[in-house]
């Protein structure tokens, strides 16, 4: 049995989302952090609704991002449209297996897994679930960490478009899929930032204070 640690919320303290300073806000409720000036909120305002809204938009755009061509390659022998999947297949058949694996993971698997993971996080937080908070917190950390790396494909398109302008032999132009793909990356990053990880723990802490048993376990490092 370890002594229960209070949450800032239980102590009536607001933790600043930017600089981490703990403060006791004035009665009026529209206070700002004394150190950095960020508006104070107990939890990020409308966290779940905003996270879900970004998420739904990202799901919708995930379809054109994969179906529409990222790039259009034109040459003397006709035009060819490249989607993400065909790009991975090309790297694979040309023998660059490691890169094919990296691109497949970074541009197909990660964006989709990220959307699924965020959906699970938002839905469980919405239902005030006390299910596996440690694992969910870890998933959240991972999602925040890997989110930016999906921009990789957009940059590849930009580099190829800039270099391969050899009229009439070969030209590459960016396709509409690239815009959708960029939007998916940005929207899922916004969704992860809108989600407040404290919402994973709030029901856990409340359950603990209700039945009096510490549901927080402690590892000794």
């Amino acid at each position, binding site marked *: 049995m370890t002594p229960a640690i209070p949450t800032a919320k239980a102590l009536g303290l607001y933790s600043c989302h930017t600089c981490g300073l703990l403060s006791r806000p004035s009665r009026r409720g529209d206070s700002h952090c004394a150190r950095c000036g960020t508006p104070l909120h107990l939890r990020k305002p409308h966290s779940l609704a905003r996270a879900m809204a970004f998420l739904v938009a990202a799901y919708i755009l995930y379809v054109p991002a994969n179906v529409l061509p990222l790039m259009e390659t034109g040459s003397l022998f006709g035009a060819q449209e490249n989607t993400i999947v065909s790009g991975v297949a090309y790297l694979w058949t040309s023998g660059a297996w490691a890169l094919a694996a990296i691109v497949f993971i970074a541009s197909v698997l990660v964006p989709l897994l990220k959307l699924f993971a965020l959906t699970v996080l938002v839905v469980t937080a919405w239902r005030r679930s006390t299910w596996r908070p440690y694992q969910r917190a870890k998933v959240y*950390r991972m999602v925040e960490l890997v989110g*930016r790396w999906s921009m990789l*494909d957009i940059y590849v398109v*930009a580099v190829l478009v*800039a270099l391969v302008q050899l009229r009439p032999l070969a030209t590459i132009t*960016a396709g509409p899929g690239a815009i959708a793909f960029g939007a998916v990356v940005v929207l899922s*990053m916004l969704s992860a930032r809108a989600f407040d990880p*404290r919402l994973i723990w709030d029901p856990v802490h409340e359950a603990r204070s209700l039945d009096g048993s510490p549901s927080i376990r402690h590892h000794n490092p």
Partner: protein
Amino acid sequence: MQKKAANFLSPIVACNECDLVQHPIPLHDEGWALCRGCEGPLYYHARGGVDRAFAFALGAMVLFLVANVYPIIELEIQGNRISSSLYGAIEQLWHQHMKILAALIAATTIVLPTVELVIMLSILLALRRGATPVGMSLLLRFLHEVRPWSMTDVFVLAVLVSLVKLAHIAHVVIGIALWSFGGMMVLLIAAANTFNLRELWEHVNPE
């Protein structure tokens, strides 16, 4: 130059992830302090402090300037050389009516890394002189928002992927800018790790 003996001044901190309140302990070695409740990262302690962070940031800035001027990749096709800088790539997209995309790339690889570096350098320069810079809290707040969107590291990996894709069309020469971007990426990560936001906030006194 080092003003603080103990590396943490706040008597209590709350975990950013699970909201548990705890007493921070000073860390002597480089590393993370983890939350007692959720095992999430509480705060980081870096070695070296202001001088070291300044050296990293200044180095990153110099390499960044080089990286923006010189070509990233050069192609050699039948004696002709085609090369493109980052700026050229963005311009090309802009002319292909991909203005949103061009803006997104310009923001994440040129504008926001510049903002990040300028803010870091201006704060560190002031701290080295023993002063707290004017508007430091605003600058730190801005930095906090900008950092996730500054994506030099992702861009470097993307250029490497492009190299492989281009290798079958033509002889590919790695340009000066790619080496510079690679070096800048390493220095920027080192600077960001040493430039510890949580410790820097302790320099700002609540009003």
